[in-house]
């Protein structure tokens, strides 16, 4: 890393519990395609409508009533999975992860240059020339810089200003 090259942007920050939670919820949200969400939502709505219709017209026995009620519950589960259930599970898991590993999570410095991004902490240093970055994904609170389809470095948006965020967005466009 050349000491002479001047960084366009530099920030040092401590990774907090909220950062870990936001990173995982954003990653979860971004990894699911829109089509999958729509398909599950549609299946949920169909299950609820079918369940309600069948319950109103074919509840001649307790068994049928239970079956159609289960169908409605499955529909409700499908509709609420990506918006309520999955984020809640992710928050709980991320919280637990932070509580267990917080002593090994250190402060981090991000330096953005014209041709690369450097991310430096006590436990990790990585130089990311723009051409070696696989993709950049922007969530609600986090920017995820992917080195391949699965592995990434993350930066909370709270440390970035709008100008540098715009530059980061252009890297892979």
């Amino acid at each position, binding site marked *: 890393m050349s000491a002479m090259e001047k960084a366009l942007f530099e920030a040092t920050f401590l990774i907090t519990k909220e950062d*870990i939670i936001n990173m995982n919820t954003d990653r979860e949200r971004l990894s699911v395609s829109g089509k999958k969400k729509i398909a599950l939502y549609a299946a949920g709505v169909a299950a609820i409508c079918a369940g309600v219709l069948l319950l109103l017209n074919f509840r001649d026995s307790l068994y049928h009533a239970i*079956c159609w009620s289960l169908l409605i519950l499955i529909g409700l589960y499908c509709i609420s999975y990506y918006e309520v259930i999955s984020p809640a599970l992710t928050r709980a898991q991320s919280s637990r992860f932070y509580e267990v*590993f917080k002593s*090994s*999570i250190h402060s981090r410095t991000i330096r953005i240059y014209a041709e690369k991004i450097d991310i430096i902490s*006590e*436990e*990790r*240093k*990585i*130089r*990311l020339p723009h051409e*070696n970055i*696989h993709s950049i994904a922007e969530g609600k609170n986090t920017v995820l810089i992917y*080195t*391949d*389809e*699965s*592995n*990434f*470095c*993350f930066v909370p948006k709270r440390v970035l200003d709008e100008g540098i965020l715009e530059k980061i967005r252009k890297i892979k466009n």
Partner: protein
Amino acid sequence: MADNIYNSLIAEFQQAASFDDYKNAYMLYDLRHGSSKGREWKASVFFVLAVGAVWYASVQHFRLNELIMPALVLVISVYMCVYYLFIVPSRSANRAERIYKSSWYISREKQYKFYRDNFTYKNEYEYQKRYYTEIYDCIETKDTFILIGGLENSLTVIDKRQLDPKQREALSSHFRSEMIRQYRNTEGKRK
């Protein structure tokens, strides 16, 4: 971290992760911690549901008006069995291939140093230090050591075939003693 008497060097070597090693390691990681986790017991549950649906239909003498729910349960259960037993592992293998081929970093040679309390790897572009306390799974297979843990890049694959026998034994016994709860040997009995 410098070598010192409190954190002695166990092994030092240079190697790069091959595609086959990475793919097998990723599939094991996925089986234990990813989307393949629990696929066998999930497939078993759906198998039982499928058998139950057929049994229920037979108890109802396959009467048409009683067949809708059992038929639905049977179709969904059979699909889910096939999904967990065949589709999920195939997707995991494909994902491993896509990750390896899309990464500029995974296949690059790295200098590994294993100390008593932590290990590091580095090359021209990357430096990573990881403490064994961050590792939540350590798997020794016939050909590799797989270390799983960490915040962002959680899979480290070491090819045993590229190590000399002393290094292999040193690492193996070190992992067994340092990561008692996390260590697994897939070759046989856990020592």
